[in-house]
């Protein structure tokens, strides 16, 4: 049912030439510690491998370290210690050593990598209020110098083509989330990361939009990671769930979270 927009990145299946899985993320012994008000929180990732084209669910209550992990995976937060942290945006590409970029303070390169390879859907909006829906969706394409034609088709598939010339404040919350999804997908990133994309919606709308979102990334062959606080939101969508092990301290706060998958 969806148009095939793919012309920027090739849509090879997530397997290399000799049949082995191509890993978009490869993390080994990555640790991020955070200190807030004297309480130390530690996120540990002994091993995390996500293949190109995979659909990943990251389920856990708020404060368990989901966002910390997402910040690591979007290169906006620097890991405390790293065994290995490699990012391979497409099958033919050489893996990129993310930790080396952090060490060399090559922050602008990480920004460029985000611009080219990453789409991000925030919990609410994250749209620029002064741009129209069309301009908001087209922003990522515009930054990369890509033609804006794909925006209309995308908006049609997202069911927001009637609102293309409106400003975000004229839309309902659900419509705004559709716009946010549009912007995250418009430039055909290698991976889309969605942090509680439907948490601010009513259950019926949430389910509909989540299903639409997953269907679209599937048809576009984009790898996706969805963070959510409840498994039931994504249960029926065929996502692979990462394992979270949470250790609480004596006060019941989260002291350490171990993610693997």
């Amino acid at each position, binding site marked *: 049912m969806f148009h095939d927009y793919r012309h920027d990145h090739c849509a090879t299946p997530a397997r290399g030439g000799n049949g082995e899985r191509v890993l978009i993320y490869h993390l080994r012994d990555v640790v991020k510690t955070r200190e807030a008000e004297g309480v130390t929180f530690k996120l540990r990732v002994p091993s995390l491998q996500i293949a190109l084209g995979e659909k990943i669910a990251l389920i856990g209550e708020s404060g368990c370290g989901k966002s910390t992990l997402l910040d690591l995976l979007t290169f*906006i937060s620097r890991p405390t210690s790293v065994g290995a942290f490699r990012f391979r945006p497409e099958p033919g590409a050489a893996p990129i050593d993310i930790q080396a970029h952090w060490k060399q303070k090559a922050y*602008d390169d990480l*920004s460029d990598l985000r611009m080219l390879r990453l789409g*991000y859907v925030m919990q609410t909006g994250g749209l*620029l209020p*002064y741009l129209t829906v069309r301009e908001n969706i087209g*922003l990522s394409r*515009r930054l990369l110098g890509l033609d804006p034609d794909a925006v209309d088709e995308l908006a049609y598939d997202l069911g927001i083509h009637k609102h293309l010339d409106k400003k975000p404040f004229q839309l309902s919350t659900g419509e705004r989330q559709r716009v946010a999804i549009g912007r995250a997908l418009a430039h055909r990133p290698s991976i889309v990361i969605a942090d509680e994309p439907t948490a601010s919606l009513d259950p019926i709308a949430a389910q509909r939009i989540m299903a639409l979102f997953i269907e679209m990334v599937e048809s576009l062959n984009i790898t996706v990671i969805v963070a959510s606080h409840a498994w039931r939101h994504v249960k029926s969508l065929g996502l692979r769930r990462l394992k979270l092990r949470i250790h609480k301290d004596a006060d019941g706060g989260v002291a350490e979270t171990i993610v693997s998958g």
Partner: protein
Amino acid sequence: MRRLRNLLWLSWRDYLNEWQMSGCFVLALAAVLGPMLILFGLKAGIVGNMFEQLINNPHNLELRTVGNGRFDRPWIEALRERPETGFVIPRTRSLAASVDLKSDDAADIVPVELITSAPGDPLLGDVAQALASPTDVILSASAAEKLRARVGDEIDASVARRFHGKRQREHVTLKVAGIAPSTASRRDSIFALLALAEAIESFKDGIAVERFGWDGDPPRDDSRRLYAGFRLYARSLDDVTTLSGYMQDLGLNVRTRSEDIEMVRSMDRNLTMIFWVVALIGLIGFSVSLGASLWANVDRKQRELSMMRLVGFHTGDIVWYPVFQSLLTATLGWALAVGIYFGVSKGINQLMASQLRPGEEVCRLAPEHFVWALLLTLAASVVAAALAGFRAARIEPAEGLREV
């Protein structure tokens, strides 16, 4: 390049979207800058008019030696060659420069003072061009009135001397070549070429003057003649100071109207200083208020700014976001202030027109003043935005992502 272009585009769209707020700052800037332009225009106009009046009055360019001296022709020629010298001509002794005039139309004999002159005399302007022969004279306005003389009239001039114990008087017919403007001399005087003055001085000294058929002792070598003084005019007001210093170095006591000139100069300096103090306070005030608002904007727009970092803008790009908006405010505010200035200055000039000479304006600015105003405003606005810019650049992509 593309990133920066897009960033400026976003900054512009944000600026447009918040047009009420942007407009308020444009108005605030114009409210500070407009009156400052008018103030500066008034200062420039008033002081400029005073300077022009000084320059237009040739008496202000004059340097007078006090008493009689002894100057030979080469010395005066050397003075003429100096770059500061506008006009110089030797003069004879003042006692030897008195002439009695008699015209057909006036009953009284009018004693006048002979002033040496030549074409180019700044006191006479174009009228001096009419001096061609030694018998041509230009009458001062009051002398012309007393003699009821008009241009082209012939008048009788007589000079008297005591020669070998006898009183002698000789006559010569002079032609009225022109009438001097009343500003040239308030007294009864005639302007004539040096030849006539020399002839009269020689006559008074008892020396024969062949040209007019006057008897006396045999003439002396004219090239070694000594003059009692000279009429000296500097080229400009600044040159008055230079020339005066030069003369004083030579041990000559000169008088100038430098006090008048200095008064206008010091007024100009004081007004300029006052203007700058007011302008500085105004601009600082504006910068601080614009800076504070841009600083607060960074807080208000943190989510959007961090979103922009997330989609790939570099730290260095984000600085330009508030800076560009600030530059927009500066340019628009300046344009509005210039508009205000033109409207108000036109009104002021019309209001004052009756008290001014034609072509004079009491409020005026040169084009470069507007350019300076723009550059200063742009500089102030960049300073105001810089802090906000660096603050915005420090925003991490993660900061605005989640609701706190």
